């Protein structure tokens, strides 16, 4: 389940910022990619919400800015 979620997260980030999937890993963070900006961050969060079918609190939107943080959040909810 965790591995499956990781793959989905990487695909969402890759689609949103237009970066190749093999360049994104568990340790990737927004600052690693100049294309992962604040708008990209909100777009990723909206896509993650659709994936988990649950609303992400506004206060978490800018916090979840690494693949690991997103994965941990999904696995907790």
């Amino acid at each position, binding site marked *: 389940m965790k591995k499956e979620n990781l793959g989905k997260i990487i695909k969402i980030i890759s689609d949103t910022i237009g970066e190749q999937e093999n360049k994104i890993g568990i340790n990737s963070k927004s600052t690693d990619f100049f294309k992962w*900006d604040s708008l990209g961050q*909100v777009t990723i969060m909206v896509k993650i919400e659709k994936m988990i079918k649950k*609303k992400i609190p*506004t206060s978490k939107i800018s916090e979840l800015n690494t693949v690991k943080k997103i994965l941990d959040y999904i696995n907790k909810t």
Partner: protein
Amino acid sequence: MLFHDKIFLFAYLPLVLLGFFLLKDKYRFIFLIISGYIFYAAWNLKFSPLIIFSILINYLFSKKIINRDDKDKKTILISAIIFNILYLGFFKYSDFFINNINFLFSSNIKPLNLPFPLALSFVTFQTIAFLCDCYENNIKNLNLKRYALFIIFFPQLIAGPIVRYNQMISQFEEGKNLNFIFKNICIGLIILSIGIIKKVFIADNLSIVTDQVFTDTTSLSFVDCWLGSLCFTFQIYFDFSGYIDMATGIALLFNIRLPQNFDSPFKATGIINFWQRWHITLTHFLTTYLYGPLLKSFQNINFFNSMIATLIVFLIAGLWHGPSWTYVIFGAMHGFGLIVNHTFKRIFDIKLNQFFSQALTFVYVNFTFIFFRADSVEQASFIIKKMLDFRSINKLEYISINLSIVVIMAFIFSIIICFVLKNTNWLISKLSLNKLLD
């Protein structure tokens, strides 16, 4: 009453400061609320109850939202947001709406000529963010006194920055923040002074050129138009960032740290970067509370739809700045700039030369601000046309506007401050670490 008015600086502010530190802890909030109301009422006593009405209604809405845990919770949130938009819309956009109806249908509806209540634009956005926080159960320890203080705290009441409830109330209630902190007083006064200098010595002097160019366009030359537009771009930055510096400095006197709202925006290397540096709290509000929900409403979330959402958000943001088509075009130009910037970033995986991208961004932003300042779309178009008429470039000597030495100095200082020097926030961090002020 403005922050740089003598009555504010030498009567209101010292009295409020004195009262705040002399009063017992339990009376301080009430004292700040009353002070905030007096500050607001100094604008227009007759219309000052409007802010009280907004506070009371939104407090009731927030209590309803917090106390519910069913599907009605969302209905109450939506009703509350609609109420706030209509409340702002009635005062700010009624005449804009009527004038457009009259133009489209050749009707003759009389404008209402309502005065626009001070601060309502900022209070509306701040309140919407607060109501969303209530909906997400993020608000702790809410009561009327805390909520009223959050809205009416006078340093950020009129023009932001847009602050969050928890971020503010936690600072007000922090035990050490109730003490007289010498370091904060020193830093606060320095930042307040910088804000006054930005406003009085730079923005107000640049406005002399701007007013000449944007008042009578008939005899303007190529150089006049470029000078006028550049002066306005610098003027609005020094006006607004000067105001924010004054607000930040004043809040610091009360041991309150306001969020950063500007980060050397003219050093931006693209429109995306510009909005990460210009009016930062507004950008955060727009992306979180407007762009996100709008994007969610699309069936497919793809790049094309995200760009459509961006354009819509900036059209709304443009209109939020003022009830005129010039502001809508200002928003549209920024939306368009963001789309081009995002598309470029997506297609080409390259970073342009920093100087080139900085210059390109500044020139583009300068063109957008012409619509922000112009009285009409026609006037803005006329000025832009003149600026692009490079055939008249050989008439460089032809400057019809009056330029005093003070204005020239203000212009030179603008360039140095905007493109070379570090910003106020950097100074605050440096001063905070300075042991001499402890």
